[in-house]
């Protein structure tokens, strides 16, 4: 009798464990792409620039990285879930209660090393040190990057690869918020085209 209870309890445990894993996996997976993130996250220009980038499906292979591939830590699953939950709360709060117009996107680009995670880049670009397609200068810089790892001078992938993942980001940001007054009101047509493009891309399920 005791044995049966033990077996039943074990079976229920396995079922609950698998079910929990499945829910977690699906939950994390379905909340990882631009379509989901843009619901709360103020990032129309970033998504638009991403759609024209090799990382957004415009490369030769058509491969598409998702937002979380680069913008979440991949060192361990707990840190990943914690960062994601924290971002969700913060972004949601800014979206619903914050002053969205006050966000200085141009200035925020300077913080790119904080919101682009190298372990995400390297999980795909694992051969960045040996890839023969990288120019000699690129290889020299990657060796330099490696030499600075763990020192107080450490740099990130995005330190040099400034618009990586979002082709023409500075330009699209200017359509929304011009850096200089002179351009104020001059990009209405471009901004409208970007918004239209986004709606169409999401309709197509891209």
């Amino acid at each position, binding site marked *: 009798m005791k044995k049966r209870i033990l077996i039943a309890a074990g079976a229920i445990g396995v079922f609950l464990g698998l079910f929990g894993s499945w829910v977690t996996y699906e939950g994390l997976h379905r909340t990882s792409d631009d379509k989901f993130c843009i619901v709360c996250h103020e990032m129309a220009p970033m998504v638009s620039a991403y759609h024209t980038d090799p990382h957004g499906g415009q490369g030769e292979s058509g491969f598409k990285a998702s937002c979380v591939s680069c913008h979440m830590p991949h060192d361990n699953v707990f840190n990943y879930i914690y960062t994601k939950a924290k971002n969700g709360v913060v972004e949601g709060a800014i979206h619903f209660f914050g002053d969205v117009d006050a966000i200085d996107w141009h200035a925020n680009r300077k913080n790119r090393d904080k919101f682009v995670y190298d372990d995400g880049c390297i999980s795909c670009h694992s051969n960045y040190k040996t890839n023969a397609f990288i120019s000699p200068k690129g290889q020299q810089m990657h060796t330099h990057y490696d030499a600075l790892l763990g020192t107080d001078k450490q740099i990130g992938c995005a330190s*040099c690869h400034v618009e990586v993942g979002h082709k023409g980001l*500075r*330009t699209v940001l200017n359509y929304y918020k011009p850096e*200089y007054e*002179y351009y104020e009101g001059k990009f209405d047509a471009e901004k409208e085209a970007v918004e239209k493009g986004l709606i169409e891309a999401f309709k197509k399920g891209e």
Partner: protein
Amino acid sequence: MSGGKTLAIAGVFLVLGVMSLIGGESDSPLKPIVITPELREEYPLKSHHAKLSLECVFCHEGQGDNPREFKMIGDEGCLSCHQSKEHVAERLAFMDKLHVNPHNSIHDGPTLYCDECHNEHKPSTNMCAECHEHDIDLWMGPTP
């Protein structure tokens, strides 16, 4: 006769040996450049390059190990990292709408030398200002 031949062969080897020694010396690795505070003051880096802890020889490649004898690196040097003039023009594409993209200027297109405006170890200038001194502050920020 055979003694003379041996001597000639030995002579050839001796000459070759000396040549290889001289050649070997010129290939010896350069002394690493220690960037002293004085050097840093004399040849300061732009903040965006300083942040990357770039070393002198990354730009001044094959120019020896004496910073005081380094030469300008020219467009080719800049573009070994910054890709191409068209690429840097593309990065400022929004400025094209009002024809004020300095990397794709209405007068010159993407053809200007980098150092017409950009300097590394001294303040940069803005060539546009030579004629448009009253307007450029509206169009663009300080030249990096």
